[in-house]
């Protein structure tokens, strides 16, 4: 039972990450591989606040969100001015920078040793400690992230995002400031990812930089693409499938060391299979590589 709840909590955390990344990848058509950086910043801000200042959970959560939003602006302002593949490479660079800072600023982040003993959330006297309590909190926060994202994509603002995804020149010719729209959605996406980070840190109670590497970014992108870019429910379905599926490997009776490698192979194969035969994912509306197909 505990094990099942643990999986469900992970699904909640990854749903937050994939829904927030979908705003960029699926709706705006910009592929960022810095998502794990924002996830990590949320986790580290909340953990350091709790450990060093003993500040309350809600404040830590808010500060994690704000810090990731600001970092989103700092990363977005230079990188969103460049396009397509170059943007991907720029976000890759920032992802590596954030990881290096977390890993090497030992006096502040403890570097590779990580931060143990992160206290569990305490929301105005309500202590979150059991699995079921964590699951409820994660589910509520995931629902909030979904609601915010849904509001964004269904609004006229979201309509402009889709227009940017399809044809920037057209959107610009009708007065839309492409950079401003991209920057706003980039900041929102980063800020929402931090919520997942805060939950991860307080749930596991230990974080180290290896949880927030480029591999993690790619895993989140896989969820978005396999679930379906441009569809928020797709990201939830993607999170369920990609988090739960490897767990099934445990029941096949493979040794743990082998299972971990098989998991990576599985993600990679799934991504290749989907890109080749079902580029819109399970229920996505946005095809990757659509333009080249049309032309």
């Amino acid at each position, binding site marked *: 039972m505990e094990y099942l709840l643990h999986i469900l909590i992970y699904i909640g955390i990854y749903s937050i990450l994939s829904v927030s990344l979908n705003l960029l990848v699926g709706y705006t058509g910009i592929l960022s591989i810095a998502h794990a950086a924002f996830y990590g910043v949320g986790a580290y801000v909340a953990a350091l606040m709790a450990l060093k200042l003993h500040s309350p959970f809600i404040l830590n959560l808010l500060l994690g969100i704000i810090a990731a939003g600001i970092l989103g602006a700092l990363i977005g302002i230079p990188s969103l001015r460049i396009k397509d593949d170059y943007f991907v490479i720029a976000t890759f660079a920032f992802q590596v920078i954030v990881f290096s800072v977390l890993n090497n600023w030992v006096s502040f982040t403890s570097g590779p040793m990580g931060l143990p003993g992160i206290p569990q959330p305490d929301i105005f006297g309500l202590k979150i400690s059991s699995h079921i309590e964590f699951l409820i909190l994660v589910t509520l926060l995931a629902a909030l992230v979904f609601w915010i994202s849904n509001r964004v994509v269904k609004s006229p603002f979201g309509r402009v995002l889709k227009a940017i995804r399809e*044809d920037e*020149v*057209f959107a610009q010719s009708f007065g839309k400031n492409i950079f401003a729209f991209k920057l706003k959605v980039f900041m929102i996406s980063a800020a929402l990812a931090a919520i997942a980070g805060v939950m991860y840190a307080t749930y596991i109670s230990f974080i180290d930089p290896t949880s927030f590497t480029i591999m993690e970014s790619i895993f989140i992108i896989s969820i978005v693409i396999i679930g379906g870019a441009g569809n928020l429910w797709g990201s939830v379905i993607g999170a369920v499938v990609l988090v739960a599926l490897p767990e099934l490997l445990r029941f096949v009776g493979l040794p743990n060391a082998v299972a971990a490698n098989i998991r990576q192979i599985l993600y990679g194969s799934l991504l290749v299979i989907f890109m080749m035969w079902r580029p819109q994912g399970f229920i996505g509306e946005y095809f990757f590589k659509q333009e080249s197909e049309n032309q």
Partner: protein
Amino acid sequence: MRENMADFLTVDSLNKSFDGIVALENFSCKIKKKGILGLIGPNGAGKSTFFNVLTGFITCDSGKTNFMGTEITGKSADKIARMGISRTFQDLRLIRQIRVLDNILLCFRDQPGEKLRNTFIKNSLVRKKEKENKKKAVALLEYAGIADKAGSLANDLSYGQQKLLSITCCLAADADLLLLDEPVSGLNPVMIEKILSIISELPEKGKSVILIEHNMEAIMQISDRIIFMDTGKKISEGTPQEVRSDPRIIEAYLD
């Protein structure tokens, strides 16, 4: 009257070259309010480059453009669009993977719902405006005769309907100046008739138009002035009658 002409759009000796190839050379023109100016000339004459410079998609090497009393040279494309210049593209741009109705809705100017904070703190205002815009959009689609396609993806329209939609988008933007790049090329006679009638009704609505077109019959029919361009230069300018009898144009075009 002359004063009025100077006030609307004045283009003063634009120059633009790409790697030594001259696309615009001392190109000047004026358009009066509610006028329809036709641009003709062979391929590569610089007509589309002129549109791109005017709308801020390309920066010119030198020259000035004044629109309704404001210098717009060097301003960004989106800023110029917000000031009231809309355009269509020769390669027919639309947002193909969203509905026809959403294409129109996208093009309205000054939407409160495009400000992110309004989506969360003034959602009732956003919804109200969206409702109004939907009504306007449906009315525009009815005017264009494609209201029955409102719910289809723009991609599923015929080529002619897509061209019609791209012009309807400019109407939604309620621009004062519309730049139409080959609005009737490649269309059947019925669709040509329909689009020409929409364009010729624009001056009554207070709009001015510059159009590029290779269909001589069409452009002579609806323009009140014509400019003939070649190799980036203005070769001649006048009323359709004057231009029609210009030997240089007869040679290039009408023989």
